[in-house]
């Protein structure tokens, strides 16, 4: 089969809808278009039945029961609902929340909002491998701690946190402290079980696991029952936790995506790990001064975040126009600051500026990996020939010994 360009290797940003998912969704746009809340006719009943079946599939993927799944518009809403909803409901017995510096913005900015309302938030640092230090977490939990939010797997570096140990620690230190996890990047990629990790709230989304955009879920534990305030008021859908007409085709797609993920996760994980390792090993064998960011051992099988020393990430992306990946150099955004996740690992800003994130997924092939390796090697070599820093490195100059002028924008 001929190689098709451009190649999509940015599966942490989103994924294509699996054709099996799309096929399951289609009838719910046209023939079975009913409102799942309509109790008076067959259109509503069919929609409700489809939603309940999907709810079961999503629950099964994470070891939950169907009644613990609240459908939302996506993970950003789920994170907001979990964090603000729990803080608001329980504010009578505490004012403290804990999260981690490398969390997604949906978590960090929900926390910042709560700080403005008077809550206290602890932002834990991570170790150089991207993992949370359990001793620091334990020390941070007090009798006022309402909630701890720690993600399953990081969206930039793919590093997986030990949620089983974290859940055990939280419940041992303060059994009333709720445990929320943004599980978006890890769900369907690595095993995750709400019972094993003693999670109370978990944010999920469909579009990172070959489902449609615009649909997600929040797992809300029932035994013991976890109470949260809604953030959207209205018709009382989803047991009052999330009002609004259900996105029936989206939910059906989410359900099918969850079913496929559960059935195929083990085989797909092995295949992706082999592809990722091929990508990593060949790049590192052919290009000196390349560094993997974050733990290689505790990492999503499809993730590779790697810095190419002495080459700036955005210029590299520009050279890779037939390859869709992302850069830790935030020159691509308006902020001009390199990735806060990479900086939290303690790597130098120049190495953060030199990083690329590859996200391999279900539809990537070995042929694509081969093509990407040869393209990357060629482009990095070209840019190094253009790089004054590479020249200085080759001449044995220690870049840290140079008194750099502050750049125009710093």
């Amino acid at each position, binding site marked *: 089969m001929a190689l098709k360009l451009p190649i999509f290797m940015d599966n942490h940003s989103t994924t294509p809808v699996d054709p099996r998912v799309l096929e399951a969704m289609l009838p719910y746009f046209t023939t079975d278009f009913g409102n799942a809340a309509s109790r008076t006719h067959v259109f509503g009943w069919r929609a409700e039945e489809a939603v309940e079946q999907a709810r079961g599939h999503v629950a099964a993927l994470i070891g939950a029961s169907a009644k613990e799944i609240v459908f939302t518009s996506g993970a950003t809403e789920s994170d907001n609902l979990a964090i603000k909803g729990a803080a608001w409901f329980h504010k009578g017995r505490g004012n403290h929340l804990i999260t981690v510096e490398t969390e997604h913005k949906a978590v960090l900015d929900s926390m910042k909002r709560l700080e403005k309302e008077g809550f206290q938030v602890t932002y834990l640092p991570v170790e150089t491998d991207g993992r949370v230090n359990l001793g620091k977490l334990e020390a941070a939990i007090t009798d006022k701690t309402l909630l701890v939010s720690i993600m399953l797997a990081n969206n930039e570096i793919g590093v997986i946190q030990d949620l089983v140990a974290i859940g055990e620690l939280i419940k041992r230190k303060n059994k009333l402290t709720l445990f929320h996890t943004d599980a978006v990047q890890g769900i369907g990629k690595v095993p995750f079980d709400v019972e094993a990790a003693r999670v109370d709230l978990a944010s999920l989304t469909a579009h990172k696991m070959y489902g449609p955009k615009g649909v997600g879920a929040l797992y809300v534990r029932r035994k013991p029952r976890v109470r949260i305030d809604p953030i959207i008021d209205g018709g009382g859908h989803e047991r009052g936790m999330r009002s609004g007409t259900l996105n029936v085709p989206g939910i059906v797609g989410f359900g099918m995506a969850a079913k496929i993920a559960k059935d195929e996760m083990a085989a797909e994980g092995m295949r992706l790990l082999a592809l990722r390792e091929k990508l990593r090993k060949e790049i590192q064998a052919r290009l000196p001064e390349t560094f993997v960011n974050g733990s290689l051992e505790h990492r999503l099988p499809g993730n590779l975040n790697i810095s190419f020393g002495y080459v700036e990430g955005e*210029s590299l992306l520009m050279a890779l126009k037939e390859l869709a990946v992302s850069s830790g150099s935030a020159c691509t955004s*308006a902020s*001009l600051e390199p990735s806060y996740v990479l900086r939290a690992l303690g790597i130098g800003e120049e190495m953060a500026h030199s990083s690329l994130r590859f996200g391999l997924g279900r539809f990537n092939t070995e042929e694509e990996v081969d093509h990407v390796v040869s393209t990357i090697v060629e482009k990095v070599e070209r840019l190094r*020939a*253009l*790089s004054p820093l590479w020249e200085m490195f080759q001449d044995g100059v220690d870049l840290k010994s140079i008194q750099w002028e*502050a750049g125009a924008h*710093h």
Partner: protein
Amino acid sequence: MAYSEKVIEHYENPRNVGSLDKNDPNVGTGLVGAPACGDVMKLQLKIGDDGVIQDAKFKTFGCGSAIASSSLVTEWVKGMTVDQAMEVKNTKIAEELNLPPVKIHCSVLAEDAIKAAIADYKAKRAR
């Protein structure tokens, strides 16, 4: 981000990439920016005894706009006198390359690189 055609053209076919002998008394070297900021430019000018710039070479670590800005100024300053080169303004560079507001700092850096190279040349001559 969409780059202008001129940025892409310079990025893909950069002019005057390379290095001159930094110990040559007629060569001024400017090294500006910082790795932590994501841009470093090295610009070298070979200046005749008549004060005319005979050659210019650059190497740049930075985004496409930074590479294009430095490539462009090497073309411009060749044949200029030192005094003329000191008058090259970042606004002209930004205008020529259609740089968006977030990339203006690249043109500022290129202007700074010219000034730094000339300052180095003058310091050498004063010795």
